[in-house]
């Protein structure tokens, strides 16, 4: 187990290194920088700006400063809120540097402000997807080939085939205009989270329902289920006690991709519902060429998704002890 975790941590480090290095290289290779605007800056101002963000340093030095293990000197460290004594600044210490577009703001400030919002939204969506998907899948598997089953399967297939902003549109029309239950957009109270959470979670609920149904039907055909049935265990207990653990293995392995998908989907949903989360910052930063912010979000989300994948793998062995971690590590 520990060996597995160590090995995964090693791969994780390699992955992150590649992401950071490649995106840094691509970013600096582009012509046109974040300070381009309609009005041409005077050379002196431009030089000053570049000096401030260390864009006049040689590339290797910029990279080293961005990643971390380089003494930055008191001035910059103090400006970032440090005391100038630490040796590891930069990404390694969780410091993504100053934002290029929002002057006087660090990427960390922006993330600290927006990440909780996005995580809350993603959490609501994931919970919604799991609850609805598992429930629908279980019902579907308990009464296979019934009309209820057909309904669930059809709805699930349609849910997968429509983009989430269209779902969001329908939800807004239905529950904000026709039946005014929830606010149209904005952020603040729990009511603001309901529609975005649903719109974000529905496609994943559909997929989870399909996976649960298939997994449960598979699990229900095992010998030990027949044994349980033969000795008179009530159907509900069989379903929830005996079959569920084996049946939701596919769902667990889908959790990693689902989280990644929900994080991505939130780019769109946050825009529709005007939620000030990380997703909208990411899109804006990409369009504004705010490179440090874009990189910060990319690195952060990569970390999140990779970390979650490890967690899923660990959960996997707990659910299905036949899966050996060592083999695939």
């Amino acid at each position, binding site marked *: 187990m520990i060996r597995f975790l160590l090995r995964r941590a090693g*791969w994780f480090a*390699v*992955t992150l290194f*590649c*992401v950071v290095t490649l*995106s840094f290289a*691509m*970013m600096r*290779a*582009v*012509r*046109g920088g974040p300070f381009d605007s309609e009005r041409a800056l005077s050379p002196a101002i431009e030089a000053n700006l570049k000096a401030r963000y260390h864009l006049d340093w040689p590339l290797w030095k910029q990279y080293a400063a961005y990643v971390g293990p380089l003494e930055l000197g008191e001035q910059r460290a103090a400006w970032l809120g440090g005391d100038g004594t630490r040796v590891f600044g930069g990404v390694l210490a969780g410091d993504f540097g100053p934002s290029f577009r929002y002057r006087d703001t660090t990427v960390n400030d922006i993330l600290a402000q927006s990440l909780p919002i996005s995580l809350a939204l993603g959490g609501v969506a994931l919970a919604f997807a799991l609850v609805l998907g598992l429930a629908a899948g279980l019902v579907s598997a308990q009464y*296979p*080939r019934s009309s209820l089953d057909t309904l669930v399967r059809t709805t699930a*297939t*349609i849910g*997968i*085939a*429509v*983009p989430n*902003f*269209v779902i*969001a*549109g*329908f939800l*807004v*029309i239905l529950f904000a*205009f026709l039946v005014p239950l929830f606010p*149209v957009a904005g952020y603040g109270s729990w009511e603001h989270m309901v529609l975005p959470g649903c719109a974000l979670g529905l496609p994943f609920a559909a997929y989870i329902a399909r996976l649960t149904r298939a997994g449960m*039907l598979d699990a229900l055909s095992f010998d030990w289920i027949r044994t349980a049935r033969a000795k008179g265990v009530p159907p509900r207990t069989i379903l929830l006690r005996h079959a569920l653990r084996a049946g939701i293995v596919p769902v667990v392995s889908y959790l*990693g991709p689902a989280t*990644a998908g929900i*994080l*991505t989907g939130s*780019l*769109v949903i946050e*825009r*529709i519902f005007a939620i000030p989360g990380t997703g909208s910052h*990411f*899109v804006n930063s*990409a*369009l504004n*060429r705010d490179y440090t912010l*874009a990189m910060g*979000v*990319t690195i952060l*989300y*990569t970390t*999140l*998704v*990779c970390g979650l*994948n490890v967690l899923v793998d660990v959960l996997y062995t707990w659910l299905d002890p036949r899966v050996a971690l060592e083999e695939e590590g």
Partner: protein
Amino acid sequence: MGALLRWKLDAPAVTPERGAALGAEAWRRLRRNRVAWWSLMFLALVGLTSLLAPLLPLPSPAALELSAEPTPPAGPWTSIGNHGFQREYWPLSSVDERLVDARVALFGDWQTGPWLGTDSKGRDLLSRIVWGSRTSIAVALLAMLTSLVIGVTWGAFAGFVGGRTDRVMMRIVDVLYSLPFIFIVIFLITILQGWKDLLETRLGLNREAVFYLSIGAVYWLTMARVVRGQVLSLRHAEFVDAARQMGASTARILFVHIVPNVFGIIIVYLTLSIPSVMLFESFLTFLGLGIEAPRVSWGLLAVDGADTIHPLGIDWWLLVWPAVAMGTTLLALNILGDGLRDALDPKSALAAKGAAQT
């Protein structure tokens, strides 16, 4: 269809006749699956419509009336107008020019009315959906082609060579798989905008082509995994040994002997991933990184529809019809993909039949 099923046979003596018989068997199974068969027919219809779009008597998808208000679906059933293609604004290929000429010869100035309504710039929605299908299908096909080339080569090579190379190559796929790839694609597209001059003048790639290619570059991972798995199981088949002993090169064995045998599963995966590519297109278009006006795609239409939601009266048709077009097509693709998988794999077909009956 003939080559599709040969990978199922472990015997090396696959004669073309038997292969054809197996292909025909799969075809028959597909036809017997009524839902999948109708999905195929529906998709053929969609494909034909988009191919023949210039021939159809539709109003221009691009002619703007800036002062127009969106109008709901209504009559009159027919109207008079010309196709309104301005060469510099909406370039047509030579084949399409012919089709437009044929249309003028056939229908003259007669064209359909606003059957599905018009949008906020007075453009006919039906026409835009039909023309938009061209872009969406092109995105899907080109992205699939890219992922096919990269994925099949990568997966087949890894599976065939095996050993350390295989481990490293598949580890790379695993690592890429665990990344939130869309962030990287968005990053890529943004970055590539900075290289626009270089790409357009030197390589002749426009923004849309870059867009297609970057989508394809994301979707090859699953393909590589699937192909590798299949190739692993074929690597020591007798016909491969035979080819090797006759002195065939690795590349020849791979692409002449092995890849045709995994074609069935490749087709299934292509069918099943086209929906996600189309969704991805709409996603990027929503973020302003995909198709741009005056070009039109289903993603762009859905985005326009979602944009029109406001409390002062809802222009529902702008959201509903693109969603219906996209939804039915993707639904049909999903069903067809499942049907193909069942048809090509009798074991899962039995399971599906058991589940689908009564």
